[in-house]
């Protein structure tokens, strides 16, 4: 079977420096791949090239076998959920308004939307009554759970998460990590998750893509990175992160 997400020589440069060097990659379907690396390594850029928020200077990002371009992006995006650090919830809509926005535009009736939202709230461990609140009166963790529900409403096969837990305090973060992993396991979706945190990567990853300065240094299971590093930086990055936390990551 073709990979759900495939990069063919995709490159993107920014005027101020940074970006992504030409990259060819394919991601394992039905698995969670963590894009890992220090700030500015190009991991978020990679994710945004996948859902077309950024256009590549060269090459093509293919999703479901279709190149992501201006004309194909809107339809493709409905088949990929996207969650960012602060959730990106629309402040003028309640939680329910946020999750119902796309389905109602697509013509779903209210009962179907509510039914789907209830199922997903259950999965995301979000009390459904919280959906009646506006984002400003939800906690950070609750907002991320609403954002996850919103991203999953149309049952996309692909889920893109850009530092989804980055802004949360450690307690909430640990709890949400656990809940998310269970949710991913239950959904069997292809997940691309961006983080700079090795602990988080080890928690979620079936595979890891380690990036540095716009280049992919190594792609494989975390154990492979530890045991057969492709570059001295891989070892340096992993050990620096471990000493930061003072514990083994794997």
């Amino acid at each position, binding site marked *: 079977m073709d990979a759900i997400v495939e990069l063919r020589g995709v490159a993107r440069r920014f005027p101020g420096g940074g970006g992504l060097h030409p990259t060819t990659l394919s991601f394992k379907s039905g698995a969670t791949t963590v894009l890992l690396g220090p700030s500015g390594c190009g991991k978020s850029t990679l994710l945004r090239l996948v859902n077309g928020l950024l256009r590549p200077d060269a090459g093509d990002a293919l999703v479901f076998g279709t190149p992501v371009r201006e004309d194909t992006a809107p339809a493709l995006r*409905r088949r990929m959920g996207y969650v*960012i650090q602060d959730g990106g919830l629309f402040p*003028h*809509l309640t939680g329910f308004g946020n999750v119902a*926005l796309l389905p109602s*535009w697509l013509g779903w009736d209210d009962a179907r939307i509510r039914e789907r939202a209830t199922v997903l709230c259950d999965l995301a461990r979000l009390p459904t009554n919280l959906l009646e609140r506006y984002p400003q009166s939800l906690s950070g963790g609750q907002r991320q759970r609403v954002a996850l529900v919103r991203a999953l409403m149309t049952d996309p096969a692909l889920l893109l998460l850009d530092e989804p837990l980055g802004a949360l305090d450690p307690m909430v973060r640990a709890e949400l990590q656990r809940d998310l992993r269970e949710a991913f396991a239950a959904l069997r979706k292809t997940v691309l998750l961006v983080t700079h945190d090795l602990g988080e990567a080890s928690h979620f990853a079936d595979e890891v893509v380690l990036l540095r300065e716009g280049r992919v240094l190594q792609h494989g299971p975390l154990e492979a990175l530890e045991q057969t590093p492709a570059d001295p930086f891989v070892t340096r990055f992993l050990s620096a992160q471990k000493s930061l936390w003072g514990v083994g990551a794997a």
Partner: protein
Amino acid sequence: MKRLALTLAFTLTACHAGPVRVGSKNFTEGVLLGEVATQVCGAAGEHVEHRRQLGGTAVLWRALRAGSIDAYAEYTGTITAEIVRGADPADLPALRRALSAQGIAMTAPLGFENTFALGVPEGLAAARGLATITDLRAHPDLTLALSHEFIGRADGWPGLRSAYGLAPRDVRGMDHDLAYRALASGAAHVTDLYSTDAEIASNHLRALRDDRHYFPDYRAVILYRADLAARSPACARALDALAGRIDAPTMIAMNAAVRVSRRTESDVAAEFLSTRLRAGATAAEPSRIARIAARTWEHLAMVLSSLLAAIACAVPLGVFAARRPRVGSLVLGAAGVLQTIPSLALLVLLIPLLGIGVGPAVAALFLYSLLPVVQNTVTGLRGIAPSLRESAEALGLPPRAKLLRVELPLAMPSILAGVRTAAVISVGTATLGALVGAGGYGQPIMTGIRLDSTATILEGAVPAAVLALVTQAVFGWLERRLVPRGLRDG
């Protein structure tokens, strides 16, 4: 809303159907003659409207040509000076032919002239037997107190003196009001004036006849559209029948009744109709409440229709401008330039295009409302956090859905603030609509300024201020209704 739109559409399109419209110039005698013309047409069974104090000759003449009004009072000297240039004001048949070539008919002279004249206290005139300017030659001992303007103009005192061979011993230039006082105290004996000034009556003066016809011929006539004779023969006949019915003393008395005794023009005109023409007068002056209610409706109609049109244009323009920064700066620049045109100038510029009445007023208010609404739409849209913009895009919302469900609601507080600014400015600016005959609160303000009557000014100014406050309050309420709860503070 529908009713408003219908009213507006009706007002704009009804220029050639509907009631007969009489216009008047912006001074008391003009308004009085307009009122007389209105009432004689009314008495002839016609449905007539009087568009008061529209402006000067240029405005009235254009409005008449354009069909925005059907008739107004004019002076033969003015016609030859400003309308049919170079013609001889005394040659009425030639004048009539020239006007008729432009589709305009002229009544025979109404009976009085409003030209320069010399005035002498009535008692002195009787004692010395003064009736004409020629009579002054025999009385060089009389002191002349002339206005500076009259002394300075070539066609004023210098020309008059040589035409009549006058050689008074004492001629002084002084302020016009002081001259009247000098005459009253006996310090001076003769002054220059307009021959139908109210002061002639109030100061008990006699206007000496210009027996050598030195001053240009400023006989009052009524100009009306030639097609009026077909549309309303009764009205045209009634106007023609005014010929020779208003002599100078009558006009002076009517002017004085308004300016000195503070009576309304319609009241004075009605009295003239019933006593001089024996015609049924229709001078029922509406009560103050009814007047204010009518003005309020006119004012609101102007403000609301222009505001709605501005919103309908400016929000899409703002959306466009926010997306294309280069086009956007052009759009904002153009709207900004419109804003710098003084309202009076804009109204005058719009008259040739839209005639007079509600049209140019609404158009001007519309143009002034564009900038705040466009500007705030752009500001509101550009102020949306990039993460929210991207979230909407990443969700896979089509552009239309993104705009309607996400971007415009997020920009709503800013857009509403712009609309509120436009509305408050419009409430104030709409008072100038009265200058082009659109009615509204400006009407009593202008009348009050003309008659120097504070009470009349306040009849327009106070409701206008109240309306501005009400507008603020209404928008406060609208903001609570329209701005999503999640975007409100607290």
